[in-house]
């Protein structure tokens, strides 16, 4: 793992060479996530609450999903632009180095600029927790932390799948962004808002709901049409997706090395 940190540090030192554009992309990332947050706030201001969820509760949902996506996309930034690595043929050099391919790809780009989104997530979570009408003690804090951690694993898994898919086809990868960014935007609101198939998609297929909607419903004492144990599924969902991601990645590398590329 020490290679991962050394590679990330190298990338960061490289980014520091262009301080101007680094600062600019942090601000750009911040503003784009502030845009999403503002939509949430303005809707809350104009419409007041949303169904049985108060503004504060929605802010907590938003905070959990945004923080985990921000951390995951910072760690896994190398996977976002991985289709370019394949197109330029740089993956051969990754294979020529005596350490894991995933470590090198993840380390290749430790994107600090993604932390712009982290700030809005943290602010949203803090604002929400401060205004919660239900008690928020150590147990709830631990539960939230667990959800965020599982979220990071889950999003990393999704990014690995997206990266792995590049070994098969480079075209049409942008459609994946719709799922990641769309999913994040969607999971910022209680899942019960969405109609049947879209809700099931983000509950069972890409289980973002397990990260914030289900656990928070229990935290805030709301009744759920789902059994109680589902509220504690976050780590399972995160772990499962991370494993799936590793599988897809390994299969992709095997395909690249088996005269397929």
């Amino acid at each position, binding site marked *: 793992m*020490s*290679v991962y940190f*050394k*590679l990330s540090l*190298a*990338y960061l*030192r*490289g*980014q520091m*060479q*262009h301080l101007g554009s680094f600062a600019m992309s942090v601000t750009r990332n911040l503003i784009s996530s502030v845009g999403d947050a503002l939509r949430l706030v303005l809707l809350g201001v104009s419409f007041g609450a949303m169904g049985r969820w108060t503004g504060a509760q929605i802010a907590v949902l938003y905070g959990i999903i945004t923080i985990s996506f921000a951390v995951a996309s910072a760690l896994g930034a190398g996977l976002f632009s991985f289709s370019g690595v394949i197109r330029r*043929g*740089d993956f*051969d*050099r990754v*294979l*020529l*180095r*005596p*350490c894991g391919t995933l470590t090198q790809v993840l380390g290749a780009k430790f994107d600090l600029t993604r932390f712009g989104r982290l700030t809005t997530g943290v602010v949203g979570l803090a604002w929400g927790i401060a205004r919660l009408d239900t008690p928020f003690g150590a147990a709830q804090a631990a539960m939230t932390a667990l959800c965020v951690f599982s979220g990071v694993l889950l999003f990393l898994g999704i990014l690995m799948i997206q990266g792995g898919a590049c070994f098969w086809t480079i075209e049409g990868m942008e459609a994946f962004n719709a799922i990641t960014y769309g999913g994040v935007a969607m999971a910022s609101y209680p899942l019960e808002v969405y109609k049947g198939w879209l809700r099931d998609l983000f509950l069972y297929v890409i289980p973002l709901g397990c990260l914030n909607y289900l656990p928070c419903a229990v935290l805030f004492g709301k009744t759920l049409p789902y059994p109680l144990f589902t509220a504690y599924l976050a780590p399972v969902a995160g772990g499962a997706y991370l494993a799936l991601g590793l599988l897809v990645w390994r299969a992709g590398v095997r395909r690249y*090395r*088996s*005269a*397929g590329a």
Partner: protein
Amino acid sequence: MEHIISVRDLCVHFTVRKKGKTMFSPREKTVVRALDGVSFDIAPGEFVGYIGPNGAGKSTTIKCLSGILTPTGGHIAVLGRVPWEERVRHVADIGVVFGQRTQLWWDLPVEDSFELLRDIYKLDRGEYERTKARLVEAIDIGELLRTPVRQLSLGQRMRCDLVASLLHRPKILFLDEPTIGLDAVSKLNMRGFVKELNEKEGTTVLLTTHDMDDVETLCRRLLLIGHGKKLMDGTVDDLRRMAGTKRVLKATVGEGKVTLPAGAVLTAHEGRRIEVAFDPEALPADKLVLHLASTAGLTDMQVVAAPLDETVAALYRRMAEVEA
């Protein structure tokens, strides 16, 4: 271990799906036989040239030897290991330099890249410093160490890449067209470094190139690849013989009319200077000289071996015709 590299019936077949003519017509599937049963052995310390026309399978072989690619068939043993099965341990013992594509970090100074490679290859600090010092001095990149890679010229960058691939003291060095795009001076330097490395350190070198000067000055042994098959394994002279042992007579003739015996071809004629290509086995040199002396008169003459790149180019053309 008498062979450091042994290759038996190496086959690599790509299934290429070409897009159908229209968006809807199904993609035609064609199988490309990049390598079709290639076998050769390389002993430690050898300097082997690996040549062939474009698309003959040169870089595919390098990929298989370096563990990047798993071949469709055949067996390879490098340093007693199968490259693609034990990739991590295998790549630790080989160095690979791609022409024009650098392995260094674009925005960082050269030395920082070296330190990163030290961590990646988990090298012992003391030994790393000694190797680095020796290489930097031998390949003369001392003053480049603090400059970011993006500010280096192609020649400087290739020299740094060479050092980077030698920091972990590999036993085998794969050079994939290392002198492509370099200016004359850098080419000479690069050849000098690699030659010295092979002779002094005993590193086995496999060089793929199109630059016949590289081949003539460096390679004691040549492997010629064509249509995925090994066509020749021998010295530079074997190559010339295979491509038709052309000799070229450069002469300054007298006033007489220039006539040529059978088997001799006039390749250049300016005023009284002529060049005649001939095959010594078919037409002995003395017969040609006597004929010219008696008919046109000879004031000066010189017999030269045909330039290698013309010979090889002619050979590649003939191979292409065979294929068409």
